[in-house]
């Protein structure tokens, strides 16, 4: 069924594509939102993801690999949105008026605050965020992530480990 949908959409069947979108739009949005942390950006990334899917679907050789392919496109779309957002912010930021950063991002009792986590998390690369979201938010196992990304399980583990290390390092930096 799914394979048939992908193949029909790949052949240009807009109705089949609609069905594919409806079945996956929530997952894509959740991943995008987890990575970007902003609903507007997540919607943009979701839209860009599926537009890219429609455009490039003929290039997908194996319909069974659609979901992994979709995940990679989602991550790419999130990256593009993030770049655009960064660029815009950099253009308009005026250091003189930039609101002062909190010198104490952590709560007094040492508990990790939301803003501290977000600030640290936003300093990760998109790929690092995406793999953390896939494993820790989407609840995918290492095996599932490996299959989705078409990479060895060992690579998934190492990337997860690296992402956690970077995140911890950023949190520590904020704590100083």
């Amino acid at each position: 069924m799914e394979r048939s949908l992908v193949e029909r959409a790949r052949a240009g069947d807009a109705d089949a594509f609609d069905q594919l979108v409806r079945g996956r739009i929530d997952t894509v949005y959740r991943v995008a939102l987890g990575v970007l942390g902003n609903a507007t950006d997540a919607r943009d990334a979701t839209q860009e993801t599926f537009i890219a899917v429609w455009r490039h679907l003929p290039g997908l050789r194996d319909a069974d690999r659609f979901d992994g392919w979709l995940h990679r496109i989602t991550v790419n779309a999130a990256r593009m949105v993030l770049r655009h957002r960064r660029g815009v912010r950099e253009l308009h930021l005026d250091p003189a008026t930039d609101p002062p950063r909190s010198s104490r991002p952590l709560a007094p009792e040492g508990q990790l605050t939301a803003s501290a986590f977000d600030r640290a998390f936003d300093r990760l690369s998109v790929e690092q965020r995406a793999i953390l979201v896939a494993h820790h938010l989407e609840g995918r196992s290492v095996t599932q992530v490996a299959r989705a990304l078409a990479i060895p399980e060992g690579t998934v583990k190492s990337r997860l480990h690296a992402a956690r290390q970077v995140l911890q390092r950023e949190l520590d930096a904020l704590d100083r």
Partner: protein
Amino acid sequence: MTPLTDDELERHLARRLAGPGLEGEPRHELLAAISGHARATPRHRLAPVWPQLRWLGVGATAMALAVVAMLAIAPALAPPGPLASPSPSAPGNLPVVRVLTGAELAALAHDTDQVGRVVVAKVDLITLSCSGGCPPRTTLMADSSVAVGGLLDAAPSEVAAFRVERQSVVRLGSVELDGDALTWSVYGILGRAATEFADHLLAVDGWLVQTPVHFCGGEFNLDERFSCGRKAYITPDEVQIASRRPGGGLSIRGPGDHSLRVQNNAYDDFAPSPEMDSIGITEPRRGTYLVRWAGCANGPQPTQQVWQPPTVAPSCSFWELVGRVDPLSVSPSISLSPSPSPTPLELTVYTEAEATELATDPANEGRVVIVAVDGGFLAVRSEGGTVQVGSVTLVAGGAWSVADVRAYRGGQDLGLIPVRGWLVETSAECPAPPQIFDDDPTNDDLSYYCGGSWLSDERIYTRTPIGADGYTGIMEVPGALHVQAGAYHDFAPDPTWGERGAEPRQGIYLVKQADCPAVVTGDCPVWEMVARLEPWAPVRASPTSGTRLVISGEHVERCGSVGGCAYLADLTGAGEQWLGAPLEFVNGTTMSIASGLPETLAPGDYSISFRIHFLSDAIVVGQPRPLGPLMGSCTSDFTVSEGQVGVSIAVRFIAKTCEVTIAGGVSQEAILGAVAEWLAGQEWPFDDFVYVHATVDEVGFLLNTYGPGARDPDLRDAGSPLFEGPMTDATIEAVRSALQPITAEFISDPTDIREPSTQPGVCEPFAGGGYLIQLGPPRSNAAGDGYFVTIRVGNGCYFWTKVVEVTEVDGQYRVTRLVLDGFFIVD
């Protein structure tokens, strides 16, 4: 800091997903945007896109150098590709777009092929309250099953832009017209102060163009939508904003002094059939674009030191392009779901004498009508005679509207009230009945609790399908009269339930106030529906009125007598005889009977004879010439049926012989006219094919359904015969009454009736004569796509009429014009 645990990580990630999820309107919009993009952008038309460059935050000068450098090497990097094909939008040839009606907008919302389309329509919106926990929802007044989202600050009868979605529309904003015209020119917009258009959308006819590469700086900018990126403009004329240099690279020129600057990448999103070559050059695309003024510039002023981007837009000419309005190739009104409403909407009031006479007709058994009596009006039911139902209060124009009834504050008991409206039934899931019904098992008066019947001025659908099996429904119909449960089933003409709930049925219904029951859904008073008013069928044609007799003669060849011949007719039958009626020459060959025969005939068996007599050539002035010997004669027998419209007798005199032909009094043309007239009276369109079998026999016109009663064995399939018998005035009326009464005038344009298109040798008439009329959903044939009425004359022989006009009449849709593309004769 303490190492981050898995729980903390997952908790914080989950928090990032908290808040409004992707549901409701945002989800709907996103799906529509994606679907719309996919449908508007067939993949095979997309040429490879040059790698997108984003130089945000880079200095303008450096960026300009980079642009030049990239342009110079672009041809070497990009695969050679043909330039886009010529624009499909020829200059000056833009199809006209128009303001749709609310009903047309609703029709689009029910058509899944229209999802993503942007249209402009003049509509009224209503907000339906909803009990049972569901929130109020805004819908189209013209069709309450169509939900309206988006910006809901609509004024009454406002012209606004909408994006069509599945079973719903999104309001994009009010549209300002250019006088009476929907579309503006670019010049027309630029000729006014942009601030005049604040908060309104404008539909502008222009060319959408876009730069092939990203630009930053060097231009007035409004916000990020207009800053770095591929800049887009709407121009009044076709402008090729970029072209390849012969030696490589690009030449770029401005869109001209008169253009509307629209947000970056607008071409990608809104141009019809966007075409882009391998280095990003786009083909200008003409269209009717919806724009909203975005504001004035606040960016850097242009300087001569940097590479100059195409045209510096006027500082306040920044516009947000929100959609493209395409003309509708097919009138959406014919896509409306059918809503047959056989009940005439004019209230007929009878005299006592008429009612007494008509009530004897079994065809009227059980029907209720209004009768004028001294001092007022009565409702009477036909039960072999008239039985009084009660006194009736009319208003000017006869029937009340629902709004009039609800607004009435006169205080007097109005008795029975005829109300013209739409009868609907709610079907929302209900909570358990109140406690009092548990305490008193004998109390079964739940007639006004929860699901029930309602009489409304508006055609209301009470259910909205959700997903495969689910639905939401309303329990109350705002502004309607709440009538007892089951009234829809009992009184609606052809009650039908579908996925949108009970199909609203329009009619004139007789109601009376029922005060306020112990348990009621909605407000009080409630109403009891007593009957649906229908005109009584006319009494069958009286036999004494007779069947019209028409005799015509033709003189083909002289009889041989020098003095000429006398031509006489004798008619016998029904116990009477008329002898020696002379036929006279009307002109050289045409003959008629001036006197001596009756104009009408009573039912019975008859015989007609024509005689040819020798006449002497001796002329005696002032004396009649006596008849000479009989030279020839011809005779034919025929039967006149009760109520038959007429009988036509034609005689041809050929030397000393003659021929008689007897035909029914209804001409072929009249039959076709009757068929066409009947077709015109049908609610349109039909979801399924409807077959009507019509035959012509010797004396009349038979019309029956495609079913076991059909004469033609091929037609004995299913259903039941509608009518059989000679075609008389009474039977024509019976057919109309049984099928659908004609409530709209059929406009027949004789110029549209073309020459016969039968192909001899191909068409085989049905063995029993007759033809098959086929009505059904839209399809394609040699005349194009659309709705057709196919008239099958025989095997392999079809004529079809194309529906060319559908008109809304009191909320119903009727075929008001057909093109007959063939004219057939049944042998």
